[in-house]
């Protein structure tokens, strides 16, 4: 358990950000970054559960080759709405809008983000976008695929495309303003002594993510606006019958949507970079390289978009360039994986729930990332493009990677946000259930995809049934893995033991203030005199001095 010195049972602080003010207005008009983070927590959880329901229906339907549960029209709406809800309204905001919002000011010693009112505006834009998407789902649904390829989406689809596109468009501005807020905050609001290279890696990760948010999101906004206008006013940007080019849509769409996947994974990588040092009680290995790798992923990530289009009919020479660049963007992710592993070397390792999620992330992100190589390689992509191989690949990264990171963050910072601890046994059990269920759901899909089963199919030839049955069985286990945390975390709010200021303990600034923190974060603005993840020089943590063996093995940088 925790390694703090023995002391009488702690009390929650008398005044903190949760009880500083009461009433619905104090929440809906708050400018406190911590309250805004919780507003986001509730809303992204809603969309996660909604997307999960759609996924459950998909998997149930696919138990039999002819698909007994849903009509083709309804099935096509299910996978589309699953994608839209999960990508735009869960994954992209998730870690940044909940944990980035909550912890970046705390980690850098600031009282709030640079623009608190714009932070609140971001949440309202998200809610308006989400409401429009919900309206689209309920008034006929959406059946274009989350990728909105034209001319299917702009001309032929009979579903509620316009409100959905408008909802995603508005939600994009939420993303842009969040990124803007983070960038300015990290530049101008650091406490004295908090130099760039003392920042937690979580902050670097969000800095890189914010660069992508501000540069990429405006392009998808324009693209969706053009597609929406094409649909409403019968214009011809992407419709060949009116002189337009459907492949132009794909270029514009993927210019954002590829970097978007890095928006989804970089924050999770930042979380893992916090958890592994904390539960190994030693510094993150290769700090500067890790920071540089995050920036490299963000930048090179803008140069690879057309690897989604190798068989779209573009020039073969363009395809060569994009495949080459795709191989380059894989390298920093590999480097990060090795650095996380090296962080454990000669550590003092404990296995509390956040670390269990970190292990899950390491294994699943590894598989997901490596399977990206099959797709980025031209010769193999011809075969597996638009098959279940792709579906398995991105779910390994986004669920196995990003969602594991999200769950790890939730369990790592829950004591700080709520002041309470959850049941460690239940939590570890749920993490393992999640891991098992996840692999059973998605691993068969690699095999199914290589065997040729295309994606977005409501019915399939009978020889693929066995894979589908395994996948659906896994999905039911996966669902349990997600429902359990909701139950025990809510339970802990009332009945969990008081966590104290720094239960793990960890070296970050956020652990120097009370749990839950006061509204103004710090009683006195901290002055930072230590390096990141420095367990060696922190007597306040109540831990031993390091045991450094004789010889040249210490390897200081």
């Amino acid at each position, binding site marked *: 358990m925790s390694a703090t010195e023995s002391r009488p049972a702690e009390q929650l602080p008398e005044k903190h950000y949760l009880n500083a003010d009461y009433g619905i207005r104090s929440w809906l008009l708050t400018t406190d970054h911590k309250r805004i983070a919780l507003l986001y927590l509730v809303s992204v959880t809603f969309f996660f559960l909604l997307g999960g329901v759609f996924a459950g229906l998909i998997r149930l339907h696919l138990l039999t080759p002819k698909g007994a549960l849903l009509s083709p029209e309804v099935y096509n709406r299910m996978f589309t709405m699953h994608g839209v809800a999960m990508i735009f309204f869960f994954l992209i905001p998730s870690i940044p809008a909940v944990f980035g919002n909550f912890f970046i000011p705390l980690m850098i010693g600031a009282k709030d983000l640079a623009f608190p009112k714009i932070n609140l505006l971001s949440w309202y834009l998200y809610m308006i976008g989400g409401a429009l998407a919900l309206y689209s789902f309920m008034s006929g649904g959406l059946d274009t695929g989350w990728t909105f390829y034209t001319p299917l989406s702009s001309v032929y689809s009979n579903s509620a495309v316009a409100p959905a596109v408008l909802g995603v468009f508005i939600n994009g501005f939420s993303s842009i303003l969040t990124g803007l807020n983070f960038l300015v905050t990290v530049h101008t609001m650091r406490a004295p002594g908090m130099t760039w290279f003392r920042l937690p890696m979580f902050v670097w990760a969000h800095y890189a993510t914010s660069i992508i948010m501000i540069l990429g999101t405006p392009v998808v906004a324009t693209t969706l606006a053009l597609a929406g206008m094409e649909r409403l006013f019968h214009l011809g940007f992407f419709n060949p019958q009116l002189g337009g080019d459907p492949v132009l849509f794909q270029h514009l769409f993927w210019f954002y949507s590829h970097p978007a996947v890095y928006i989804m994974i970089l924050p999770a990588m930042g979380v893992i970079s916090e958890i592994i040092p904390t539960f190994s009680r030693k510094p993150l*290995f290769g700090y500067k390289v890790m920071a540089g790798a995050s920036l490299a992923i963000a930048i090179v990530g803008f140069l690879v978009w057309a690897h989604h289009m190798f068989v779209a009919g573009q020039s073969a020479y363009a395809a060569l360039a994009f495949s080459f660049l795709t191989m380059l963007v894989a390298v920093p992710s590999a480097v990060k994986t090795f650095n996380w592993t090296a962080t454990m070397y000669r550590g003092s390792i404990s296995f509390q729930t956040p670390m269990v999620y970190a292990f899950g992330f390491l*294994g699943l992100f590894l598989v997901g990332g490596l399977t990206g190589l099959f797709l980025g390689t031209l010769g193999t992509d011809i075969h597996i493009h638009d098959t279940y191989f792709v579906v398995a690949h991105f779910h390994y990264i986004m669920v196995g990677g990003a969602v594991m990171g999200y769950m790890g963050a939730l369990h790592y910072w829950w004591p700080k946000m709520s002041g309470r601890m959850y049941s460690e046994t239940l939590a570890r059990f749920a993490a393992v259930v999640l891991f098992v269920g996840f692999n059973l759901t998605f691993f068969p899909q690699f095999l199914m995809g290589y065997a040729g089963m295309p994606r977005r199919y409501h019915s399939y030839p009978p020889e693929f049934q066995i894979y589908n049955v395994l996948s659906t069985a896994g999905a039911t286990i996966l669902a349990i893995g997600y429902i359990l945390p909701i139950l025990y975390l809510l339970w802990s709010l009332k009945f969990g033991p008081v966590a104290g200021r720094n239960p793990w303990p960890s070296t970050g600034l956020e652990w120097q203030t009370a749990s839950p923190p006061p509204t103004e974060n710090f009683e006195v603005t901290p002055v930072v005199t230590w390096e990141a993840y420095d367990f060696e020089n922190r007597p306040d943590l109540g831990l031993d001095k390091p045991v450094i063996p004789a010889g040249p093995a210490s390897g*200081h*940088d």
Partner: protein
Amino acid sequence: MQLQTSSLLPEQASNFAGRVDALMLYILGTSLFFTLLVVILVVIFSLKYRRQKQTEIGVPLHGSVPLEIFWTLVPLVLAMVMFAWGAVIYMDFRHAPADTMDVYVIGKQWMWKLQHADGRREINELHVPVGRDVKLIMASEDVIHDFSIPNFRIKMDVVPGRYTTLWFRATKTGRYHFYCSQYCGTSHALMIGWVTVMEPAEYAAWLSGGADSNQPGAGEKLFAQYSCSTCHMPAGKGRGPSLVGLYGSKVKLADGTTVVADDAYIRESIVSPKAKVTAGYEPLMPSFQGLITEEQVLSLTAYIKSLQAPAAASDASAGAPHMGKK
């Protein structure tokens, strides 16, 4: 007829298949190596360095430039091999050889129309000779589709407003699935068909299957040649209604009216199928106006007239379509 076997790798039936699989195995091997490496290291570290005393900390190692260089370069080199190998296969795939047998393919919601250079047409079927370079020249009538043949390890999008091409050389006779692999709307999953790879002699025989209409059995041959049976299956489970017992019967149309299926009705259904759509079916049937001569229409009508249900109640077994004739 060969279905996919339950072995992990689907059958290899084209010049590309073996090459793609070999590259895949290289990537798989590399991936397995790194997966095992990281997993084993994490397990070893977890066991060897697990916390013994509650207040102990780890050894403060910060980094190692040589290590970073090493584990940056090794993945880079391995990835470059993947890139180069894949690029070679891809460039070969994107540049068809000079002397190909060309087939024109039109994708439309939700069916495939294929036409051989000599005029022979197919619907949702592609017959090719083994060992011959074949090029498909493809276009879409509406949205983006994709023509994919997993056993050949190839696919290419079919885009409205332009032509796209793919080529292959089938290396093994048999029947192989092809799929639409770009989501195209409601019946995307039904836009599938079969590639039949035949020995050259068989293929030649199949090509000349359009018999003279005066010969007996001409109508039945035409029915097969124009792939009517793809949609008009005898048990009525296809995209179009069964034609068994059709002639002379009353037909309920989509607009609610009823007509008698006489010679004129059958002719109109062939040349203007959208004029009278049978209730409960989509208006998917293409028109054969200009493709079938009046003489051939007569042969087909005669054949359809001959399709009567057997006296005993027919069971629902699909099986090989056996057209009973009285």
